[in-house]
């Protein structure tokens, strides 16, 4: 009998995704009790589960895109719908523990061209980071910056540590785990979006907390 590694791998991933989906839906269905010991445990399981989901998606991205650039599937999407969806996810993950705000600048066009799945993946990763570090609130924003769509996540945490700001600013690959890894993916995703000789960017800075910003031309 021959052993087809690719088929086997595909089947494993299928199973893994199913189990993870079930786990996430199961955690989502655990009711809150108003009892801190219980509720905090449920909250952290939910956030951990989301983190595993993020990592699995990133792992697949690496597997598929190994040694070749990420190929985004660009189409027209509504930035309004995107922000609505992200806010809904953030509110759900925050569970009332933190305040979530969303704001769209008034000059945001009705549609923009981007890969919705990749951008959602990067933004949810940023939201997840902010939820883990914010003191009381996070804010999701869309605006036009330098004729690009700027999608940001702001929080009131202590801000990004200097080495991360330096790494992202200088485009240095960081091999750290956790936060650094997610940011590196977000940077790749942003850079895979190009339009008329302009390339997307990830910009990080601190302004009364951490500010994560994807710029999509």
């Amino acid at each position, binding site marked *: 009998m021959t052993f087809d590694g690719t088929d086997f791998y595909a089947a494993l991933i299928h199973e893994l*995704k199913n189990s993870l989906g*079930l786990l996430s839906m199961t955690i*989502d269905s655990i009711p809150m009790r108003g009892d801190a010991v219980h509720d905090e445990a449920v909250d952290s399981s939910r956030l951990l589960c989301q983190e595993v*989901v993020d990592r699995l998606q990133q792992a*697949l991205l690496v597997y*598929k895109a190994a040694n070749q650039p990420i190929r985004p599937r660009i189409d027209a999407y509504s930035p309004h719908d995107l922000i609505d969806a992200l806010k*809904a996810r953030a509110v*759900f993950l925050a569970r009332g523990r933190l305040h979530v705000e969303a704001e769209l600048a008034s000059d945001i066009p009705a549609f923009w061209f981007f890969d919705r799945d990749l951008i959602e993946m990067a933004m949810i990763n940023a939201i997840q980071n902010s939820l883990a570090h914010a003191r009381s609130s996070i804010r999701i924003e869309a605006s036009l910056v330098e004729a690009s769509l700027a999608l940001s996540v702001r929080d009131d945490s202590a801000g990004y540590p200097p080495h991360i700001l330096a790494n992202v600013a200088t485009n240095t690959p960081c091999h750290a785990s956790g936060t650094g890894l997610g940011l590196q993916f977000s940077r790749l995703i942003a850079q895979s979006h190009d339009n008329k000789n302009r390339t997307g960017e990830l910009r990080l800075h601190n302004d009364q907390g951490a500010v994560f910003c994807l710029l999509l031309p």
Partner: protein
Amino acid sequence: MSLPSFIKSNATGIDYAALRALVVDDYPGIRSALRLTLANFGVTKVQLVANAAEAIFQIRNKSFDFILCDFNLGDGRDGQQLLEELRHSNLITLETVFMMVTAESFYEKVVATAELAPDDYMIKPFSAEMLRGRLEGILLRKRAFKAVYQNFLAHDLESAMTACDALIRNEPKYLVDALRFKGELLVTLGRFEEAEALYQQVITLRAVPWARLGLARSLHLQKKDEAAEAELRDVLEKSPEMVAAYDLLSDVCLSKNDTAGAQGALEQGVSISSKTVRRQQKLGEMAHANGDLETARTAFSNALDKGRHSIFITPADVGNLCRVQLEQGDREAAETTLKKNKNTLQSSPEGKLVAAVTHGMVHTRAGKLQEAEKMLDAATELRAAGTRGDAQMMLDMAGVCMASGRFDEADGIVAEVAKNAHDSEALLSKARRIYEEAGRTEAGTGVLASATSGVRKLNNEGVVLAQRGDFKTAIEKLAIACNEAPFNPRIMMNAAWVILKYIDQAGMDDTLIATARSHLAEAERQAPGHARISGLRLQLKDVETRYGVQRTHPQ
């Protein structure tokens, strides 16, 4: 579980409680979890099924507004195949929401045209808010497109286009979607130049692959094949996974008479997505025509394998595989193929004809002439009762007749095929070969000449008369041609064209317009997707509208 009030707020006026949902997933745990997820935002009318067969059964029996289907359904058909079958058999309309659940964002989701694509994709695992957000987006879009869809479903493409224009002017959010739909309408209506301009307009916004593919298709349909090929090669360099582009590239190569290029394009498409039955069938036919029997055999047997339970598989597919196997001299394999597909073949007269003719060929090659005769008797009986196979199969039957010394019957069959394909060099040369092999080359030349010349003459006379403006006599000539060659797509199209011209000049004639309609339907059956058909449909529609013909449409 309760959701935060933000998520429950329903300012859009969508009545989730009334939404009838069907969940298709092979994993029982996921099915029940999805039921809970849907209940979260008020969708409670939910039917759960495990595979494509169960889904089709449910959809045949009742209507659904929303189908949530996993791409990977274990054995049997996958989600994409299910969707294609549902659309092909008109089991769902544009108003039904179809969402595909996939395990990753990289699966073959770039599909040919809007009609073969789901409304949206969900990447697993997803949360209730994500699903609700996507679903709401689609429902609102379908609401905005209501007038477009209704006119489209009533075959009133002009009004559908007007409705698209209204969206383009007034609904910036749906501008790109409306342009995309309008592009497909323009192509269907045969207005290729306008379609080209529209796709150029989208490309100015952003060179999205579907617009570039639309542009290439519009160019190809205007016979600007060099430009179409250049566009496609460039699209494929940037998005090599875009299987639909290979299909179109193969058509473009074919119209440039580059049969090797056409086969190569299909092979690349198949190497990315091997599950599409129609692509395998096309590759098999192309490779067979190119004399690449090994590739043809693999493709035809893949078509049968992947297409088990598929509505796109017909008895002709079994015939195609056996024909290649016999041409390779592999009689045993042909017998095995027939044995494996025995039950399917015995379930329809067309299947019985394929079985009888192919068995006849097997026996002939094995030198068992008596058994071949028996099979031939069965085939003859089926043919006398009106059963026909495709042209290839009928020529096979003529070959068996010839080998059994039944020359008159063979000549009759060949004449019938030739009349109906008087302009198909491929079929005519295959017919010639049968005569050569039987040592009756001269007789063959005679049969083919008299079969085609009659039809060709009537057709040419009809066309010339019509060009002179004598539509009435042209109709008479072409009516005789139609009688002689009832399955000849070119004759059918010409006959329909002349009738429409006549009505245009002389006024409505109920009998004639019905004839034109049935000619067009036959042409579509014989030459699906022929470039001329959409234009003729448009003229027919135009005549009907002007004379206020009320047509009731199925559904």
